[in-house]
Every structure is written in structure tokens, then in C-alpha cells.
């Protein structure tokens, strides 16, 4: 199954999907018309959400795709087209409104339907100057739909009337038939495809997955949509499904770095499908903290339990047998490129397989001591690779590549290792998240399960790991001697050099630590002995036949250096905490 086919299939499962030829749009107001074409009422459909007013989502005839040309929509449009009024400079509003009027006169022609008659009369009567008499100022540029006044309260709009539907169905059937590459049936192909909205960082008017906007992209003399024949109905279906999934709070999207990721499940059991979607959302998006109602809370709890078991390495078919076998799961990562949308990754897999790969990833990332804020979500890890931790600074492509390798169980991208090392060198922060990313790459890509342990391994003889531990010990000696008020610690000054070119700085650090230790010895002789023992213990493990401080460390050794530093540093904190706990229990 191809991406577009799967999306078109998913569209059939969306409960309130608009019928073919229709699309969901944001509608700001409805105009109630009298039979003679005068305006009876104007109702604002927008709802206040915080400070903003948000227009209502409504199913209306599918919009035309506007670029530069003036093209009106059918039975609805924004005020500049429908009423000839706009908030902007409005250089073209006269032409736009005229196009709207002409379009409908031509489309409707002679009719005896009272609704369409009233609409035509309204178009004859209406003058843009009458705007202020009927409408408030802030309704400018909202989308307008029309209704007969006596039908308005039953929620029947002009485009819902049988006579209007008949017109809509007979229009737009021109265009040669081609084999549709989604449905495989012969049908008129879509020249331009509906816009996909809501891809993070893309144009607000939306972008296209299927588009041929320069002649270098066209082949064999085909123009636009003919290059990839997709029938109109299939194009609307896949775009409709994607737009539905991309909506905020649809429960089908997460943002992973620059990749807007949508996911959906397919199963005979709709409950299981919904549960798997929730679990996946929690896997990559982090726990949903907004759950409030008791029912939601129970669901969230269930998701949490399943997730814990998957992380612990249990196979899904043992935890939730129905989830493991019967659910097919789809994940699609999209990233914008100007007006186009590119596919970063695509996955169609059984949910059990997906959970297994996620379990492997959790095992790779497992580190002790763990992150104090609980299991981080994927985007939190990615923020660690970004300058200033900002989401827009996540290196492009890294997010998509990493997510793909997590979900498919393939080796991680090596850029992940380099990026994390680079971030550590430039800002000097080594926390649980970074250490676990380093460890994960070492374990999966280099098969260094032994060299890259979960927790402090006092017998590990890898030189990168040992130097990392030693560096942490020197830093600890400095803190012990000079306190925490030091402006630039040896970590701030030397971490980068020590991890990449140990020979340059370790002699210096060794000399400095002698001073620090003697100062500690004057105040707390016990701590001095403890420190010296630790340093001696690390030194003892070093291979006597090779240089203890090599000129350079490779990238993997640098990663082990970071891991060793993280483990040793936290071991110092841990030993400090234990005595204090003992005294408190004694007292």
C-alpha cells in the first residue's frame, strides 16, 4: 500500500468526513436570506477561545486552489469575494466580487428553487457600501456561507439544499480520463491537488505533497497533475484525511523536531485502534498531562501501564494480545519545503512490531541515574541536540532520520552522535538525556554493550570511559577545594579539549588536582583520602603498556568519555547522599 492509498483508506474511517466534493473549512458567519434576497440576519459563528475568536469548522463545497488568479468558491467564500469587502487595501475586491457574482449566475442559470432564487436576488441587490448597515467590522475577511432564513436554525445552508447539490455534482466533470494511481480506476484526474494545511513551518495557505510547480519536475510533456494521474475524488480523500490528522489536538499528530508526524491505526476493533493511537502518542509525544475527566484518566492510566511494560521489554502480545496482532499502524513524517511538502519517513507496520522496536529503543536509552523528570519524550531528547534547546534549532533531517530508525529498529543516524558531542563541547552540559543518547548510539551502531554500561562500571577498562571518569574526579576535587562559587570550573574550561585531545590538558589537570587535594586535606582529611583512592583506582585500570593520555580520542571514545564522566560525577553525588540519609534515620 502506498502512502496516498493508505491515507485515502483512512479517510473512509473518519467519522464526520465531508462527502465527496466537499471539504471542511473555517466559516466565520452565516447570512440568513429572505425570499426576496434581502438580508434577514447575520450570525457570527465564531467562538471565543481565550483572547482569540475561532471560526467554526464546517463542511462546504471544496475550495478552489488560488494562486494569483481570481477564482471564486461556490456558495461560500471570504467577504472580499462574497460581499466585495475586505479589511486590507482591497485593490482587487471589485473584480473578486464581480467574479463571485458572475460565477454563480452562470452556474445556477434559470432555476425555480426558492433558495437559489433568493441567493441570485441577493447578488443582484447587494452593494458593498451596504456592509456597515448589517455587519460588524471584525467580520471582514471571514468566510461566509448563506442560508434561507427559515432554514437557518435547522442548520440547513444553501449548499446543503438538494438543488444546490445537483448543480455541484454536474459541474466539474470535464478533463480526460486517466488511470488513477490510488484507486486504479479510470477517472478525470486532479490537475492541482488540495492544499495540505498544518505542517509545522510550512506556508499558512498550505502546501502540496503532489505538485509540479516548476517545469524541471514535469516529464514526457505532461502538465501538472497529469504527471501523476490521481482522480479528483481520491485526491480529495487523501488530502481530507491528512488535513484531519494534522489538525491541532486531533490526537493523530506529534511534532518531532522539524517533522510533523501523523499516525493512525487500522483495526476491526475500533477501541483497539484508538488505544494503540493513544499509546503511540504517549511513546513519542510524552505523557498527556491534560487528561481531566475520570474516564480519560482511566484511559491514560491504562496507556501508562502498557507503555511501562513495553519499555520493560515485554512483547506486546503478552501485554495486550489484541493490540499485538490485529492492529496495523501507519506513521507519516512530513516536513515543509516552501510550497511543497516532503515525506521524511513512512511506516506501515503491525503495532506489535512497532512496540517491539520501541522497547529496543527504550533499552538502548536506559541509563542510571535516570532523568529526574521521568522518561523524556522524543522531542525532549531532540531539544538537547539544538542550540539553546530551541525546537527550531534541531538540525534538519536529524529528527526524521532518528525517528525512522527508532520505529524500524535500524541503526541510528551517526549524525546523532556527532551532534550530541558537538553540543556537549560547546555548552558543556552533560545530563541524563545526552548521556543516554550517546550510550544508545554506541550500543546499537557499534555493538558496545560491554563498553557502554547502563550504570557506573568500576571495572570498565576502555580508555575513553576511564578518562571521562578521571576528569569527573578532578572536577570533584576542584569543587571540594574551592567550593561551588568558581566562575569557570575545569569542566567549563577544559571539557572539550580533554575529551578530544587528552594529552594536551590531562598533565595540566593532574598538576592542578594536587593543589586541590592538598587544600581539601587541610580541612577534611577523610575526603582527601577518599578522593585519592578514587583517582588511584581509576589510574590502576589504565593499560600500563599504552599511553594513559593519548593524543586524540575517536568519536566513539569521546562518547564513552561523556558516559564515564556522567556516571562518575553522579557516583560522587550518590555517595554524598547516603551518609546524610543514614544520619536522618538515626536521629
Amino acid at each position, binding site marked *: 500500500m*502506498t*502512502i496516498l492509498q493508505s491515507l485515502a483508506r483512512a479517510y473512509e474511517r473518519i467519522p464526520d468526513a465531508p462527502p465527496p466534493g466537499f471539504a471542511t473549512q473555517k466559516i466565520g458567519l452565516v447570512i440568513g436570506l429572505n425570499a426576496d434576497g434581502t438580508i434577514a440576519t447575520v450570525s457570527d459563528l465564531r467562538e471565543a477561545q481565550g483572547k482569540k475568536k475561532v471560526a467554526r469548522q464546517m463542511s462546504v463545497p471544496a475550495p478552489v486552489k488560488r494562486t494569483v488568479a481570481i477564482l471564486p468558491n461556490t456558495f461560500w467564500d471570504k467577504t472580499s469575494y462574497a460581499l466585495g469587502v475586505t479589511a486590507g487595501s482591497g485593490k482587487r475586491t471589485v473584480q473578486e466580487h464581480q467574479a463571485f457574482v458572475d460565477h454563480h449566475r452562470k452556474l445556477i442559470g434559470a432555476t425555480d428553487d426558492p433558495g437559489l432564487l433568493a441567493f441570485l436576488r441577493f447578488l443582484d441587490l447587494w452593494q458593498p457600501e451596504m456592509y456597515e448597515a448589517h455587519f460588524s467590522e471584525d467580520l471582514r475577511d471571514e468566510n461566509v456561507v448563506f442560508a434561507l432564513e427559515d432554514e437557518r436554525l435547522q442548520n440547513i445552508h444553501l449548499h446543503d439544499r438538494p438543488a444546490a447539490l445537483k448543480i455541484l455534482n454536474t459541474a466539474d466533470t470535464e478533463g480526460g480520463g486517466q488511470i488513477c494511481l490510488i484507486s486504479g480506476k479510470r477517472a478525470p484526474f486532479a490537475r492541482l491537488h488540495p492544499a495540505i494545511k498544518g505542517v509545522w513551518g510550512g506556508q499558512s495557505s498550505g502546501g502540496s505533497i503532489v505538485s509540479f510547480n516548476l517545469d524541471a519536475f514535469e516529464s514526457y510533456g505532461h502538465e501538472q497533475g497529469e504527471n501523476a494521474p490521481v482522480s479528483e475524488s481520491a485526491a480529495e480523500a487523501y488530502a481530507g484525511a491528512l488535513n484531519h490528522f494534522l489538525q491541532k489536538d486531533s490526537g493523530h499528530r506529534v511534532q518531532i523536531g522539524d517533522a510533523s508526524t501523523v499516525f493512525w491505526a487500522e483495526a476491526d476493533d475500533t477501541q483497539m485502534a484508538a488505544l494503540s493511537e493513544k499509546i503511540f502518542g504517549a511513546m513519542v509525544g510524552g505523557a498527556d498531562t491534560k487528561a481531566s475527566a475520570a474516564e480519560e484518566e482511566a484511559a491514560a492510566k491504562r496507556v501508562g501501564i502498557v507503555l511501562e511494560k513495553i519499555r520493560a521489554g515485554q512483547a506486546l502480545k503478552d501485554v495486550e494480545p489484541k493490540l499485538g496482532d490485529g492492529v496495523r499502524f501507519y506513521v507519516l513524517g512530513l516536513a515543509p519545503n516552501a510550497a511543497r511538502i516532503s515525506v521524511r519517513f513512512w511506516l506501515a507496520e503491525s503495532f506489535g512490531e512497532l512496540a517491539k522496536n520501541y522497547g529496543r529503543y527504550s533499552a538502548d536509552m536506559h541509563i542510571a541515574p535516570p532523568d529526574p523528570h521521568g522518561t523524556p519524550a522524543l522531542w525532549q531528547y531532540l531539544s538537547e541536540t539544538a542550540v539553546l534547546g530551541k525546537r527550531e534549532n534541531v538540525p534538519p533531517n536529524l529528527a526524521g532520520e532518528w525517528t525512522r530508525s527508532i520505529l524500524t529498529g535500524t541503526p541510528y543516524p551517526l549524525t546523532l552522535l556527532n551532534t550530541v558531542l558537538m553540543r556537549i563541547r560547546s555548552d558543556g552540559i552533560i545530563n541524563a538525556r545526552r548521556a543516554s543518547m550517546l550510550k544508545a548510539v554506541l550500543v546499537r551502531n557499534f555493538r558496545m554493550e560491554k563498553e557502554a554500561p547502563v550504570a557506573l562500571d568500576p571495572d570498565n577498562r576502555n580508555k575513553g570511559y576511564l578518562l571521562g571518569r578521571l576528569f569527573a574526579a578532578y572536577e570533584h576535587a576542584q569543587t571540594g577545594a574551592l567550593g561551588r562559587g568558581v566562575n569557570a570550573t575545569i569542566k567549563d574550561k577544559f571539557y572539550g579539549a580533554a575529551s578530544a585531545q587528552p594529552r594536551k590538558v590531562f598533565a595540566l589537570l593532574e598538576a592542578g588536582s594536587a593543589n586541590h587535594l592538598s587544600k581539601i586535606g587541610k580541612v577534611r582529611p577523610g575526603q582527601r583520602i577518599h578522593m585519592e583512592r578514587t583517582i588511584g583506582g581509576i589510574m590502576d585500570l589504565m593499560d600500563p603498556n599504552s599511553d594513559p593520555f593519548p593524543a586524540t580520542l575517536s568519536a566513539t571514545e569521546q562518547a564513552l568519555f561523556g558516559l564515564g564522566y556522567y556516571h562518575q560525577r553522579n557516583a560522587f553525588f550518590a555517595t554524598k547522599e547516603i551518609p546524610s540519609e543514614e544520619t536522618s534515620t538515626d536521629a
Partner: protein
Amino acid sequence: MTYGIRLLVSGPFACFTRPEMKVERVSYDVMTPSAARGILEAIHWKPAIRWVIDEIHVLKPIRFRSIRRNEVGHKASARNAKTAMNRGDLSGLALLVDEDRQQRASTILVDVAYVIAAHFEMTEKAGPQDNEGKHLDMFNRRARNGQCFHQPCLGTREFDARFRLIDLDEPIPEPDTSAHTAELGYGTPRDLGFMLFDIDHQAKGRPSLFFRAMLQNGVVKVPPLGSPEILR
């Protein structure tokens, strides 16, 4: 009597671009018949023969990677060339590559290997001096020696294909047993959706031909041209 050949092709990268995602390229999961035909034609082709692809065997797991490249945004215009000829002046004809850039993302296949099983048919252009044995010998000799008219490629020119002829008495290589997964259609056949079969260059408007590709035990069976499975 069949004149079948089997050719092993492999490479570190491949991009069998889907028509619906050919701008921000996304590759098909498996080599298309037209790409396979292109590879065979690069090794041996004459107007007297027409290659027919029978099967495509997938030998490696299907793995993707996405990359970004700077490509050219426009084609050189034939009309401009014509007016320049008439004018006898070349000004304004140039297409400056570094001033007409389009960054395009591509999701491509990595580390691929296929066996193409194919045969050829004689066309109406075959003369009295053409016969099947001659062309079969020519292909086998050229493929064995690594000869080709131009370097065959895996979908796009920048991803070159390495090839090796598989002799008739040699068994077709199988994927690793570790790759015998549902992904390659082991157990249940995997539906790859509609796949490009070829472009119908004879018909008006040069429409694309599609067929529903199924991957079964690592093999895509390609229907013959003219069968009802080819949608036109």
C-alpha cells in the same frame, strides 16, 4: 522456447521515484519494471528486440534514508533554442545552474540488491540477419564481461548499478534468512499498491501504465504487457 536471462544488480543507493512524489522524491519500495528494463537496455539493446521483465527478486531488506540535494529548477527551453537559431544569436539562451537552484528532499533506498529475471521478444524491426540466439549470446557475453552502452543505474543516474550475470545453471541468490520477514512478503504476500509499469510511448499523450505489485516471498511477478493486470 524462452530466451530468459537473470541479472544480479546491486548498489549502495537507489531511487525509483514514485510519480506522485517525484518533486520531493520518495522511492518505490522495490525496483520498478521500467527501471529494470532500462538496466538491461544499457547492457544490450537493438531495435530488433524488446525486453520483457518477468520477475524482480528482492535480496535485501527495504531500508530508506532521506537526503537533501540542490537541483536545477528549469529545463533548457526548446522554444528559446529555436528562436536563437532563427536569430543566429545565442544571447539569453544560457541556463545558469547556480542561479536556478531548487533544494529538494529525497527519500531513497539504501543498500539494495535485486535479481532481474527477463526475456526478450523480437520486434517487427527485426531483419533477416536477426535471430534470438544471436541477441541472447550478445547479451550474455556483454553482461559477463561487464560491458554496457552506458552505466546502468538504479532509478536515477547518480545511483549507479553494479551488475553480474547469473548463469542458467546457477541458482538465484536468496535473501538472508534473517530478511525473511513480512516486509519482503514472506508468510503473507505484501501489497505494494499500484506501481508504475512503464510509459506508453506509442499512445497519444504518453500515459503511464500501472499494475498492482505484490511482493511474495521476496519476488514481484510482473504481468506481461497487454494482460488485463496492466491498467491503461
